[in-house]
C-alpha cells in the first residue's frame, strides 16, 4: 500500500501531443460476419470498428470512451492482433503489426500488453498468483529457476501485494487484489504500451481509485503508454491526457482532455458529458441535460450518412447523405460532424 500514492498531485498533465508517436492506427476496420440459415450464408456484418484513425504518443494516456457496443473493446483487441483487422493498419513504432508472424510477432507482443475488465475471468483459477505472474517470463524464456521467483516477488511488491501470497489461488483474493495480479502479469515483460480494457469497471468504487492510482504511478515509474478504454467519463477525465469518443464503430471526436470536457464540439460528446452528474446540488439542479431520443442503431445496419443523424438534435440535409469527414478543426482537435464549422 505504501508504494502507491493516494493522490496524483505530483502529476502534471501534458497538454497537447508531445510529438513522439508510438502507435498509429490507420483507417482500422473490424467487421464480424453474420451467418444465417442452413448453409450459414453470409448475410451481413457487424461493423464493430468502422474505419478509425488515431495516433498514440509515447508516454501519454489516450482515453477511449463510448457506450456499450460502440466498438471500443474491439479497437483494443484488434490493435493487439487478437482479431485480424478487416481493413486498415496498425503501426507500432512504424512497423505494421499485420505483417509480423512467428518469432517477430512474439517479440512484438512483449512490448504490448493488456489489462482486462474482469479480474475474475482473466486469471486462470487453476494457477497460483505466482504462476500467473511467472507465465509471461516462462513463455518468453526471459528468466529461469530462482530468477523467476525473484522477479515474481518483485512484481507483486510493485503492485502492492505481499510476495508471500504467491502461492495463493485467485479465488483467495479480493477483486482489487486480483486486478493487481493482472497488472503485475501485464508488466512482467516490461512492455511500453498497455491496453487497459475497462480495468476498473468490474471493481468496487472504493477499490477503483486505488487501482487507477496504481496504474498512474506505474506509468510514471516505467514511462508506460496507455490506451485506457472506459465508459466512466469522470475516471477517464482523471487519468487521460487525450480522449477519443466512439459512437457506432467510429471516432466522433478526439482532443486533449481539457478541451473535450470544457468545450466539446460533437453533439454526441455534448450529450454524453451532459449526463455526468455534478457533485454540487445547486449546480446539479440547474444542470441542463441533453437527452438523446431513441437507441444506438444496430452496427449490422448502420444508418446511411452520419451514423449519429437519427438521434442528433442538429441533424440536417447533408447528415442524411454522406458520412462526415473526420477532420482536424483546431490543432489537435479532431471531429467528425457536418455541423461543426
Amino acid at each position, binding site marked *: 500500500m505504501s508504494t502507491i500514492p493516494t493522490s496524483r498531485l505530483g502529476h502534471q498533465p501534458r497538454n497537447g501531443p508531445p510529438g513522439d508517436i508510438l502507435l498509429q492506427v490507420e483507417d482500422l476496420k473490424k467487421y464480424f460476419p453474420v451467418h444465417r440459415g442452413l448453409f450459414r450464408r453470409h448475410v451481413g456484418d457487424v461493423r464493430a470498428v468502422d474505419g478509425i484513425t488515431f495516433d498514440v504518443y509515447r508516454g501519454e494516456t489516450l482515453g477511449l470512451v463510448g457506450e456499450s457496443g460502440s466498438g471500443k473493446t474491439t479497437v483494443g483487441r484488434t490493435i493487439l492482433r487478437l482479431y485480424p483487422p478487416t481493413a486498415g493498419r496498425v503501426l507500432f513504432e512504424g512497423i505494421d503489426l499485420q505483417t509480423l508472424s512467428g518469432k517477430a510477432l512474439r517479440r512484438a*507482443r512483449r512490448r504490448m500488453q493488456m489489462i482486462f475488465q474482469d479480474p475474475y475471468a482473466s486469471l486462470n483459477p487453476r494457477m497460483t498468483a505466482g504462476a500467473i505472474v511467472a*507465465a509471461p517470463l516462462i513463455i518468453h524464456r526471459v528468466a529461469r529457476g530462482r530468477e523467476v521467483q525473484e522477479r515474481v516477488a518483485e512484481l507483486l511488491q510493485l503492485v502492492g501485494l505481499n510476495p508471500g501470497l504467491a502461492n495463493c489461488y485467485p479465488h483467495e483474493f479480493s477483486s482489487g*487484489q486480483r486486478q493487481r495480479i493482472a497488472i503485475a502479469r501485464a508488466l512482467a515483460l516490461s512492455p511500453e504500451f498497455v491496453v487497459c480494457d475497462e480495468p476498473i469497471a468490474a471493481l468496487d468504487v472504493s477499490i477503483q481509485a486505488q487501482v487507477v492510482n496504481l496504474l498512474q504511478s506505474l506509468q510514471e515509474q516505467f514511462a508506460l503508454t496507455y490506451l485506457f478504454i472506459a465508459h466512466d467519463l469522470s475516471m477517464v477525465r482523471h487519468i487521460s491526457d487525450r480522449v477519443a469518443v466512439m459512437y457506432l464503430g467510429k471516432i466522433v471526436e478526439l482532443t486533449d482532455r481539457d478541451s473535450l470536457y470544457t468545450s466539446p464540439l460533437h453533439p454526441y460528446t455534448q450529450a454524453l458529458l451532459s449526463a455526468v452528474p455534478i457533485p454540487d446540488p445547486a449546480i446539479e439542479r440547474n444542470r441542463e441535460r441533453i437527452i438523446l431520443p431513441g437507441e444506438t442503431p444496430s452496427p449490422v445496419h448502420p444508418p446511411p450518412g452520419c451514423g449519429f443523424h437519427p438521434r442528433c438534435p442538429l441533424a440536417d440535409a447533408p447528415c442524411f447523405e454522406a458520412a462526415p469527414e473526420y477532420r482536424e478543426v483546431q490543432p489537435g482537435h479532431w471531429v467528425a460532424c457536418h455541423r461543426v464549422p
Partner: protein
Amino acid sequence: MTNARQAGVAGSQVQPAAKRARQRRSAWRTLRRNPIAMAALVGFVLLILAVILAPLITPIPPNAHDYDHLLEPPTWAHPFGTDDLGRDILSRVLWGGRESLRVAVMAIAVAISGGTVVGLVSGYFGGWVDALIMRIVDVLLAFPSILLLLSIVAALGPNLGTVLIALGVSAIPGFSRLVRGSVLAAKNYEYVTAARVLGASDAYIMFTQILPNIMPPLIIYATVGLGNAILITAGLSYIGLGAQPPSPEWGAMLNAGRTHLRDAWWISVFPGLAIFLAVLFVNLLSDGLRDALDPKLRQ
C-alpha cells in the same frame, strides 16, 4: 485462505469467491459425504490391492496343477475351490485380475491421451481442421463399436495386447467429442485471451490453460469408460478373442468353467463375481464423482 487474509496488503478484504476454483476443493468434500461412492472407492482400492498383492495373499501359483484335488468345492486349503486341472481358483482370480484390470486401465489411458489430443486440436483450432476431425469421429461413432472391436482383434490376432489397442482406439472418438465440446467453451475464457496477449504458443495454451480446466467431465467419462472396458475385455476373452488359455483372465476363466457349471459352479462364479464387483465399484464411484464434480446436480 487464512494466509491470504492475515497477510492481505491491499484491498484487504478477501472474498471467498470464484466458484470454479472452490469447486475442486468442495468436490472431494461432497464425494466424502456420499457413503455409496466412498464404499465403492474403498472396495475398488481393496480389489486393486488384492490383485497387486496376489503372491502374498495366496502362495499357490495360478497355473500350478494339483491332480489330487480336481474340481474340489471351496475348502480352507482352496477357499474358492479348484478347477478340472486342480488349479486354485482364488489364485487364478487374483492373478487374472492383473490381466483384466491392467488391460482395461491401459486401454482407457490410451483413449484419454488420444482423445485429449484429438479433441484439443479439433476444438482449439476450429475451422476446417475441426470439420475434418469431427466428420471422421462421426463415422467412427456411427459404426457399432463391438463390430469395430471384433474386426480390429480379428485383423491383429486374438490376444490381450490386441484387445488393449482395439479398446483404446475405439474409445478415442468418444473422448475426442467430449474434450472438443469442453474446449469450445473453455477457449473463450478471458484468461486464454490473456495468454495469447502474452505471446503464448498454441500448445502452451492448450495444455496449461485449457486442459486443467476441462478435467472434471474427462474424469467422469473415464471412470464410466473403465467399467465398460473391464466388461469388454472379459467379454472378448470369453468368446476366445482375448486372453488365451491357460491365462487366468476373468473372461477366459468364465468360459473355461462353462462346461462344469452344473457340477462345479465355483469355477465360473468367483471370476464372474470379480467382474461384477469391479464394474459395480467403478460405476458407483463414477456416479459419485459426477455428483461431486457437476455443481448443477449438487443441491
